[in-house]
């Protein structure tokens, strides 16, 4: 389809582990992202969930170009970013912007809000002529629901939710088509979180943005995402529409993850079939052979150690899943 705005093919990021004195030799690698295929369509929100350390942020950083992939290709609006020159890549970044997790650390405390949001214009002087930059910044502030008069304030004079709006305004400054949100609400209080999510949805409707939305809070992802990818140890283990993933998960990890999410309804207590996993996430430097989830999986058999399950449609559920024994299991009951 032509309206695929972002695509990755076997995207890999390995952080080398080195050893040696004079001549460093590589003795291994942290396989932070290990072959990820994704596509994002115009106007769509793709949710990515997974446990801490599974490579979500690394993937996000590669997508916005903060990290160069070890291998694999990244296409932004059909352009292969690994093939173009540095300058074009830098300009290409305009189209894909990032909203970071922590609104407290992602704004330079020594710059005014105006400087922060206006920085993209200085970096890309052709976007907005010099004279009207301030005006533009104020428009952005207004767009994200902040008082345009606050342009000369410093970040610490704002609350977390307001700061996150500043971060969003900065991301919007270059009129990108894609916005990558790396856990944009995890650091916020429940009561504020809703404000930011509402804003993101509003902007998407108004500006036709596409989102990649990373989060570990499954209910937030469910609320905002159209499609969801579940990551485990650098790989996508299951991907599908929001309904497919939440209603008919087929990968045991997805099932465990969903069942572990506490449901804010005491009536369901004891009725849910909770899957409590044993053990911890293995180290990405030394992932298990075959299926990476097999060390914690209750279904694991010999084949899981020998053969790596591919991400493919295996089951009547109709969405890809990387498990030899994929089968639907209903773990989430409707709240109502």
């Amino acid at each position, binding site marked *: 389809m032509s309206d695929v705005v972002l695509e990755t093919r076997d995207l890999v990021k390995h952080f080398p582990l080195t050893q040696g004195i004079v001549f460093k030799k590589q003795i291994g690698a942290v396989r932070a992202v290990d072959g990820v295929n994704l596509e994002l369509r115009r106007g769509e929100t793709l949710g990515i969930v997974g446990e801490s350390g599974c490579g979500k942020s690394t993937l996000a950083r590669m997508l916005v170009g903060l990290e160069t992939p070890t291998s694999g290709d990244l296409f932004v609006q059909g352009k292969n970013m690994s093939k173009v020159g540095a300058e074009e890549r830098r300009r290409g970044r305009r189209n894909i912007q990032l909203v970071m997790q922590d609104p407290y650390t992602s704004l330079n405390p020594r710059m005014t809000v105006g400087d922060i949001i206006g920085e993209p214009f200085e970096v890309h002087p052709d976007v907005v002529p010099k004279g009207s930059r301030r005006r533009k910044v104020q428009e952005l502030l207004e767009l994200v629901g902040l008082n345009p008069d606050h342009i000369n304030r410093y970040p610490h004079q704002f609350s977390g939710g307001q700061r996150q709006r500043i971060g969003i305004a900065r991301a919007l400054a270059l009129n990108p088509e894609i916005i990558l949100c790396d856990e944009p609400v995890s650091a916020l209080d429940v009561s504020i979180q809703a404000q930011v999510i509402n804003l993101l949805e509003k902007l998407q409707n108004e500006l036709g943005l596409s989102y990649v939305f990373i989060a*570990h809070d499954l209910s937030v992802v469910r609320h905002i995402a159209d499609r969801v990818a579940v990551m485990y140890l650098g790989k996508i283990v299951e991907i599908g529409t929001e309904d497919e993933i939440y209603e008919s998960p087929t990968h045991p990890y997805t099932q465990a993850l969903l069942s572990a999410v506490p449901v*804010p309804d005491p009536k369901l207590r004891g009725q849910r079939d909770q899957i409590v996993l044993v053990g911890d996430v293995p180290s990405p430097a030394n992932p298990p052979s075959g299926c990476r989830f097999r060390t914690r999986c209750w279904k694991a058999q010999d084949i899981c150690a020998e053969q790596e399950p591919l991400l493919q449609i295996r089951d009547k559920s109709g969405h890809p899943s990387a498990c030899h024994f994929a089968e639907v299991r209903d773990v989430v009951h409707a709240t109502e």
Partner: protein
Amino acid sequence: MSTDVNVKLDALPGLDPKALPLQVKNLQVEFRTRNGIAHAVNGVSFDVRAGETRAILGESGCGKSVTAQAIMGILDSPPGFVTGGEILYRGVDLLKLPESERRKVRANRIAMIFQDALSALNPVFTVGFQLGELFRKHRGMSRQDAKARSVELLDLVKIPAAKQRVNDYPHQFSGGMRQRVMIAMALALDPEVLIADEPTTALDVTVQAQIMALLAELQRERNMALVLITHDMGVVADVADRISVMYAGRVIEEAGVHEIYASPAHPYTKGLLESIPRLDLKGQELSAIKGLPPALTNIPPGCAFNPRCRYAQDVCKQDPAPALFQVSPSRTAACHFWKEVKGDE
């Protein structure tokens, strides 16, 4: 696990074994800082029975941790001072005890689990040392015995290969295991009350599930009173018996878990519940609570929630703050309009 219970019962004066294990009455705590006095806790009352789980729910900065620290007597002082109220352990007011007596209550009778296990464990001592210290200092055990007990404890909280790991340092454990070590440490002296201050906030959902399951199991086994501090409505729904909702240093609603979720009687509680994304509301705007929590140095007069409240009227803006209204025999709410809030459903 057969703890030598007898050792710890050197009687406290006025101890009433039949009284509640923990009762907090009108607790007040303030921080005297350079920028003024922060009223972190302004009259918090709750109690907890043996075997019961009391959840304290509230947003960041509303005074949950401070309450817990005040109960333990480990506030940073200065700048923190308990300025009023009572903390009763089986009828004994801990605030009136001399420090040497009070020290014996800590860990022995009331223990605590901290939010961030990595920073709560001393990075330069082995886990075994930190666990064994409890036995050595409170039970006078030898190093070997203390170590043996530490291994038992690690086993209890399901840390594999406990014998070897007892000599590891905290940073060598994963997040979930550290939190289990914290739990082991809290349970070491078989306390009657366990205060868990956001024990799973820093953890992944799957690990959170492990930890909560473990806690529930241990609580059941020992018939402990558990005070669970959290802001996660889901966790509360899963494990709590009774809930106290805090806002700006005050308990604004107190009720059984089912009552609260079914029909909140305070607009803040209601707002919280509504702002959780729900399946049936997918695609719709979330109902967010507008505005921000107040700064504790500058709490608005009247009901602290009034600037954000959709029910607020003039009376809410005037001192005194609304008292706790008895909504039903087993629940209270601090809102002048609790009836409207509740009936609004």
